[in-house]
């Protein structure tokens, strides 16, 4: 078990190092963008004098390196600073939006992951038959629809035509959990449609791959039912690739759903980030970038760790 702990610690350390590298990329990458917050804020009324004043006020006239370390220091102590455009505390503003994003991602995942795996198992069990083709066909069709088209479609039918769910997924503090769930129904449906196929296909492929092994034949020969074979012998050995693709999709649900947010007016991180990029509100953009990077790296570490734990060969390296 010690070696496992060591492995996990190694992964986490590597992840942190990666995060540091990302922070350098984000900071200097954004600095390299043309224009700055002062210019974006003044917009039409930017006179050279006003620009210089505002830049000084925002500390944008300082050299880059000290600003980077100052920013990194703040990041480590949890102080993300204040937004340049509206003076709000970034940590508080992001906290709210991040909470919303995670809420939506969580509920989408709750439906999508078990459904995808179940459908994958079913498809593998009936590989090549009509059930398999139906499942694959439908899920591939839903993934092929651009998100906004899927969004408008479900909006038209479920919100405007039949009026089952509200068209806007605007949640705010003070709503009961049930109201919130009802409100986010449409984006959850769309997100499930988008991520389902990927995970389903991977589950199906991994299971089919394992099913050709000798030990599956043994299990069949000793008289186990087909579902039991899949569940007890095939699935544990297929976990590693499935977990990887599940984590990738979870990461996508957190960082990549800006289109769905816009269509359903969901107050998540995506729209928040886009607004602040347009206004060159660098501290906010940098903070969002770091959070997204951390989510991606964190989920990938988790996937690695689960794969290692699920695979005895990786658990006991020679």
């Amino acid at each position: 078990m010690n070696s496992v702990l060591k492995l996990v610690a190694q992964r986490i350390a590597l992840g942190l190092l990666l995060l540091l590298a990302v922070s350098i990329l984000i900071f200097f990458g954004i600095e390299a963008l043309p224009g700055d917050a002062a210019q974006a804020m003044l917009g039409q009324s930017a006179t050279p004098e006003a620009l210089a004043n505002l830049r000084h006020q925002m500390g944008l006239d300082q050299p880059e390196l000290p600003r980077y370390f100052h920013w990194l220091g703040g990041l480590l102590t949890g102080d993300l600073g204040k937004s340049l455009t509206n003076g709000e505390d970034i940590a508080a503003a992001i906290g709210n939006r991040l909470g919303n994003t995670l809420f939506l991602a969580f509920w989408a995942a709750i439906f999508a992951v078990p459904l995808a795996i179940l459908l994958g198992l079913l498809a593998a069990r009936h590989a090549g038959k009509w059930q398999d083709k139906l499942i694959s066909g439908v899920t591939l069709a839903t993934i092929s629809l651009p998100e906004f088209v899927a969004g408008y479609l479900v909006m038209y039918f479920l919100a405007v035509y039949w009026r089952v769910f509200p068209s806007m997924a605007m949640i705010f503090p003070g709503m009961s959990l049930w109201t919130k769930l009802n409100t986010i129904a449409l984006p959850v449906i769309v997100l499930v449609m988008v991520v389902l196929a990927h995970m389903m296909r991977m589950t199906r492929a991994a299971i089919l791959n394992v099913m050709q092994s000798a030990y599956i034949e043994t299990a069949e020969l000793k008289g186990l039912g087909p579902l039991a074979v899949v569940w007890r012998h095939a699935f544990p050995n297929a976990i590693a690739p499935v977990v990887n693709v599940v984590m990738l999709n979870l990461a996508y649900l957190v960082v990549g759903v800006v289109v769905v947010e816009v269509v359903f007016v969901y107050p998540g991180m995506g729209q928040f980030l886009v607004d602040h990029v347009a206004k060159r509100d660098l501290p906010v953009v940098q903070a969002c970038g770091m959070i997204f990077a951390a989510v991606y790296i964190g989920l990938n570490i988790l996937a690695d760790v689960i794969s290692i734990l699920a695979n005895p060969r990786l658990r006991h390296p020679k």
Partner: protein
Amino acid sequence: MSNELKYLAEQTAKGRMSRREFVGRTSALGVSAALAGAMLGSAARAEEPVKGGKLSAGMQGGESTNTLDPALAASEVPFAVNMTWGETLVEVNEKGELSMRLAEEVSSSPDATQWKFKIRQGVTFHNGATMTAEDVVATLKRHTDEKSQSGALGIVQGIADMKAEGDMVTLTLTSGNADLPFLMADYHLIIQPGGGVDNPAAGIGTGPYSVTENQPGVRHGFTRYAGYWDPSIGHADEVEILVINDNTARTAALQSGQIHMMNRVDPKIVELLKGVPGISIHSAAGRGHYVFIMHCDKEPFANNDLRMALKYAIKRQEMVDKILGGYGSIGNDFPINAAYPLFDDTIPQREYDAAKAAEYYKKSGHDGSPIVLQVAAGAFPGAIEAAQLFQQSAQAAGIPLEIKREPDDGYWSNVWNVAPFCASYWGGRPVQDQMYSTAYLSTADWNDTKFYDKHFDEVLIAARAELDQTKRKAMYSELAHILRDTGGVIVPMFNDWVEAVSDKVGGWFADPNGELMDGKALVKCWLKA
């Protein structure tokens, strides 16, 4: 009244039918115009305000970066939000007249250099404090400070001295300005306790609603302020503004009943929405306009013959029809239309004339190299398509117009006011002087056509202090002529505000001053029982 007549009158009162259409259709039923007018009045009056309920507006034009600081309001949502919790000294009503809000009376010295505002007594801020003349002066002072980055800096700059005595605020100007009270209706100049110096974004004002939730770019919630001074407005118990930037999402929200009104109906879907039960489309002819601007100090646009060639080479009516879906009116190459007071409607309308355009083009001696028009989709809605129409009509006159597409991102800092020929837009201003002073005075920061004309400046300054309305109108007419014939601005069209409103909403009327009844739809409308 026959059922059909009654139906027609109601439809018109709801804004589904124009007045002219109503009179036309009733005369088909054998009713005289006078009787039809009287019936219309009774249908409109029949609606009594209903108290209570929650009124929601879905709006485009809000970002997560918005703030409640009135000095920084620049887009539609912050504007409407501020109009809900805050008030100005005066407002400009739908007829273009001044009506009193936090000021009770306005008077001036004969030369219009000194203005006195009598401040309304017994008005309280949402924090319970009484609004005083000192608060008014502190507010105006804050906007004169460059650090406040106020959008009203240009307005308050001309005030040399401000004084508060008792309930009287006295403003002394550097030079006479007959329009000063209109300028005080500017949406940045919301009176805040202590001028809002300590916390400009506190969102505390004297308006009918106090802020309960402020989530920029998402939702702004308000509840009725019990101590509000004017019982004639502020009917709903709660109001909210939801930021819905996506056109389809906004429309769907209205159709599914989640909001009661929306701004910016896409001209492409107006006809479709008209057929939806429970929704009415309202349009108001505003002062906002779309422009193509040429720098009068840069080649080849320094040559007025070339500018004239381009002005004759644009099909205005076609743009109104195709870009605005008919919801607008044609421009005449100066930034003023009939929605402004003292507008001179005798100025001849410039039409598309390929022969004249070709003649001016030849006279300009341009070498035939492409004339580059820089444009981004965000310059105004439909800007790319408008530029393409312009290109086609110019080509027909033999003018080699070339379109260069620019990204939206950074357009206002990198292209507008920098490139010699580009697309842009202007929201209107309440009075002519403000529009001309903002963008066409030689010394204006926003002189985006680089128009330097001494005589123009002199007439503009003189008109400002002129209290004789007839003389003033003549002066503004002269300014319009100068710009139309020598200026760098091409004004193909004035855009209407096109809005969609649920039939559950009562009290709606058209207001040319701004979107959603100049930002006050939530304050002035009510939810029908």
